[in-house]
């Protein structure tokens, strides 16, 4: 009982005596968590946004002639067998003609002379909306061209290519930045902890000399580390949340919200970030201290 009381008292006293450095370390942790989590949030939302952006993509396979429903099913199966596909729509001559006339709107009378058969039938393939398949679109198009009856495959060639590269680049950038940030924040936090512990080496050494048990020295440091990790992450994530709501309120119109379901982390991720941060801070304190206490 008294044991616990002393350790808690010791922790409290430490915090009180070193509050300014504690605050600075807390700020460091908070900022680190903030930029890391900010990045992570952008990354996850960006991926989702990238998918949405690919919605419009479809490949049109022009066919030699109308095909029977049985054949349609067979083709669809073949296509689905090659790649993950969201939707496959068969467009008959008639349907194609209707569309064109709708497009031409007022001028649709020009089509009257042609009759509904002048446009070729086609299959429209909507590939699955993930970046992986997007980047393989060319490959996919080549495959579609080999289908029986296919005469030509049309798709927003250059646009798709650009989009694919763009999203790929985004992915790489996010990945690298993420890595860089993790590295940097990890280093910064551990360096900061090392320095602050180092500033207290005299105190720790004296405790050692006075015969303080390992627990007496380490538990307060551990508690301190846990608190720093917890509070630091807490502040960091909280600021992120405010930033997030601010962005959402300030910058999203109806079309925007529609496009990006700009969403915050789920609880699990929050807990995970906090946990890792706590482990990191507490572990950092203990390992820094170990170096100082070789007595």
């Amino acid at each position, binding site marked *: 009982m008294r044991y616990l009381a002393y350790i808690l008292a010791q922790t409290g006293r430490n915090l009180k005596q070193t509050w300014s450095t504690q605050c600075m370390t807390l700020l460091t942790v908070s900022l680190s968590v903030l930029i890391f989590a900010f990045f992570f949030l952008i990354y996850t939302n960006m991926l989702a946004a990238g998918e949405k952006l690919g919605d419009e993509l479809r490949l049109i396979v022009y066919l030699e002639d109308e095909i029977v429903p049985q054949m349609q099913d067979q083709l669809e199966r073949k296509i689905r067998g090659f790649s993950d596909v969201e939707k496959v729509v068969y467009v008959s001559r008639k349907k194609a003609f209707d569309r064109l006339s709708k497009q031409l709107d007022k001028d649709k009378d020009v089509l009257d002379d042609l009759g509904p058969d002048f446009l070729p039938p086609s299959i429209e393939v909507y590939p699955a909306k993930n970046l992986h398949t997007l980047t393989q679109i060319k490959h996919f198009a080549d495959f579609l061209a080999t289908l029986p009856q296919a005469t030509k495959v049309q798709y927003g060639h250059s646009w798709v290519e650009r989009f694919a590269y763009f999203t790929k680049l985004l992915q790489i950038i996010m990945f690298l930045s993420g890595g860089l940030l993790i590295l940097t924040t990890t280093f910064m936090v551990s360096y900061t902890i090392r320095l602050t512990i180092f500033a207290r080496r005299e105190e720790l050494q*004296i405790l050692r*000399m006075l015969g*303080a048990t390992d627990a007496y020295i380490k538990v307060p440091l551990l508690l301190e580390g846990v608190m720093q990790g917890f509070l630091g992450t807490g502040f960091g994530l909280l600021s992120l949340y405010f930033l997030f709501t601010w962005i959402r309120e300030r910058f999203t119109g109806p079309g925007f919200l529609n496009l990006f379901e700009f969403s915050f982390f789920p609880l699990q991720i929050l807990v995970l970030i906090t946990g890792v941060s706590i482990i990191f801070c507490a572990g950092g304190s203990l390992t820094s201290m170990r170096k100082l206490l070789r007595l």
Partner: protein
Amino acid sequence: MKKTTENTPPGEIPVDKPFVDLVKVSKIFKPSITALQDISISIARGELVFLTGMSGAGKTTLLKLICCLDRPTKGVIEVEGKDLSRLKPKQLQLLRQNIGVAYQNFRILPDLTVFQNISMAMEVAYRSPTVIRRRIDDLLNMLLLTDKRDTETGKLSRGEQQRVAIARAAANSPSLLLADEPTGNLDTETTWQVMNLFKQLNDAGTTIIIASHDETIYKNAPFRTLKLVQGKLV
């Protein structure tokens, strides 16, 4: 756990066995500074011993070996019958709680008050707050420091700091007390106050080793005086 923080009952070790026993202890600092050479000393339980010698003779080094802040290059040191080189960390920590050391360079924390500095030593041994308060007030009273109780030690005069270091060493009523140059910054009057404290502790059974160059405190005293000359006992 609490047992060893109190004085071990005399029955545990044979009374005739020395309390502090050094056998052929040498300490060589890298690269080749022989600070101590083949020192053999036996100090009985309850003894008060003076350790003298010129500056650089090895007094501090010897005390550091006894309180296990450093390890000898050669030789065996036994305190309370235990070989120091064989102690486990836990045992070592408990032993340290039972040895009070007034370091020559004090090693007190300048940002803490006098009270906090002394109570640190007692809290480490899990003494109760009331015991701590009473003991510290007693000690401060004896060492003429009562009015500095809540002053940060960094703001004290050097002699006052020295007395804080001594008070901390004596706080736990240790069974062994090592005082390294305890009166180096003290005037005659304060010196006698400090010596009184030591005698009082000694009467209560504490074994005391005082390293000092101050002839006035050991010259006509009825205690054994060990003299070190360049790391050798003479």
